[in-house]
């Protein structure tokens, strides 16, 4: 083959054992409660969809207001992990053949996770993502991620319960997230998603109240991008583990920045609110153009390039 003929670039990527046709996934908690919607997003160009974080039992979540904008692509939410529960949800996605679905799970003890994973035995699940980082619900999320012993137990037990790849999603909590990452790696995790929302709040000056019914929520979107990027850079510099970048992606440039920082794929959530489902095709198109211009044939060639001295 003539080396001057440029290869048509491919958007396919792999995150350790997980292979995807496209590198931009829907992040957990976004539009994620219906198989019909997953199908639509997949047709719109999402490489995979991550489900809402599921618990053993259905949860109603917090009362409204649960989400609002802080401007400039930033959102604060305290949906409170409302979800139909793993058993209901597993029933709903059973018909799925086509869409790469990553099932996000929250729980407090290893048994919670083992129970939930059992529910999905007959489902086509691309990977599990353990949410160790929700900043606004007691007893799960960050309260688990901030406890290294518990992380170790949960990851080990999940890895023992399934052959499906397992991802740990980390965020900025009260402990050092790099310690959570290390513990998860030691317990056999296949990949890391970084980061979740960051604990935050906003107050209305007229009524003099926090806007969220829960007072505190998680900040997502554009404002957290520079923080998420440094986490991806730090994790992938310090450990030999595939990383999925998440936080504030809303353009193809953002996605490429995360690849250069060391992410093998990205997730996005808030930007769907600003730009709707077309965002996946827009980002895919932009990445392809960039790859052509820079003469890359695969996403892999870009991953971590910003670390060159």
């Amino acid at each position, binding site marked *: 083959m003539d080396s001057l003929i440029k290869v048509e670039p491919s958007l396919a990527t792999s995150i350790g054992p997980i292979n995807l046709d496209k590198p931009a996934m829907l992040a957990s908690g976004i539009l994620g409660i219906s198989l*019909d*919607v997953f199908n639509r997003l997949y047709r719109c160009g999402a490489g995979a969809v991550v489900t809402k974080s599921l618990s053993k039992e259905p949860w109603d979540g917090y009362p409204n207001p649960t989400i*609002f904008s802080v401007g400039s692509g930033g959102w604060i939410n305290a949906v409170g992990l409302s*979800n*139909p529960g793993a058993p209901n949800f597993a029933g709903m996605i059973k018909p799925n053949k086509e869409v790469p679905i990553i099932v996000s799970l929250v729980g407090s003890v290893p048994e919670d996770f083992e129970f939930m994973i059992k529910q999905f035995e007959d489902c086509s699940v691309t990977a599990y993502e353990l949410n160790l980082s929700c900043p606004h619900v007691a007893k799960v999320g960050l309260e688990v991620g901030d406890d290294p012993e518990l992380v170790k137990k949960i990851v080990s037990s999940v890895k023992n319960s399934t052959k499906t790849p397992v991802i740990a999603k980390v965020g900025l909590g009260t402990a050092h997230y790099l310690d959570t990452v290390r513990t998860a790696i030691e317990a056999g995790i296949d990949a890391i998603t970084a980061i979740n929302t960051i604990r935050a709040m906003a107050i209305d000056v007229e009524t003099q109240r926090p*806007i969220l019914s829960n007072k505190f929520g998680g900040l997502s979107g554009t404002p957290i991008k520079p923080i998420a990027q440094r986490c991806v850079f730090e994790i992938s510099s310090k450990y030999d583990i595939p990383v999925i970048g998440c936080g504030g992606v809303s353009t193809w440039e953002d996605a490429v920045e995360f690849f250069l920082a060391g992410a093998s794929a990205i997730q996005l959530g808030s930007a769907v*609110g600003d730009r709707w489902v077309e965002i996946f095709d827009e980002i895919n198109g932009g990445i392809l153009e960039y790859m052509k211009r820079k003469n890359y044939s695969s996403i892999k060639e870009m991953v971590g390039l910003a670390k060159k001295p």
Partner: protein
Amino acid sequence: MQRNRDRPTIVTIERVIDETPTVRTLVYSDDVMPNVLPGQFAMVWVPGVNELPMSVMIAQEPGKAAFTVRKHGLASTGLFNIKVGDQIGIRGPYGNAFDVKHGKLLLVGGGTGLVPMMRMLTFVRSTDDVTVLIGAKSKDEVFFEDLANRLLEGNSHKVIVSTDDGSYGQKGHVTDILEGLVYETRFDGIYTCGPEAMMYKTVQAAHSRGIFVQASLERMMKCGVGICGSCCVGEDLVCRDGTVFDGKHLSNNKEFGHFRRSKAGILENY
């Protein structure tokens, strides 16, 4: 501070109108909400209570808009109890709007589903022939009949009220009357908002006869902007793809008229 559509802007209630014992209209001044399209809604924050989706009601005064709320559960009761001088937060407007055809129009509304219908009446042309069909359980619950007549003063029009118990207007379900109307008249457009069973039958009746029909759906809403997923109906997100959908589209949606989701997102029969 520049107004942010997706963060509550505080407005003060200036007038409260009792429409029925359980329905009130709350009037406020605002720059944005008086000018929304029929079918558009706001997310309304009742500080310390809850936030809920509300169609934007007309207020018949420049620079003013309103909400018409039926007292129901926690959130709507909180809003219902708001007094003159109290502050609420509003964000939006959200959603698409009715595609207002011209000629012979039929509007089918039940309860607070009449709100977008009233706004729509401000968009009809004087040459349009407009029939408004108002459904209610009983006499007590009828409202907006006079308003509809007033808004249509210059038009060839009819306002028909039906009550389930026959205590006012015609006796029976709106949908029974509807069957008669579409049999008699070839409408250029049918529009409906109200209880889903009513909308489902209206859409069926019209769509099966090839008449253009649109319905404005209601679902549990948290974000209003297409992030949280709580408002999905099949593959559609009511807040973002709707709230207004064509009959053609709806007739392919297997959840419309049959299922809705609970706060936890579990599919339930209507």
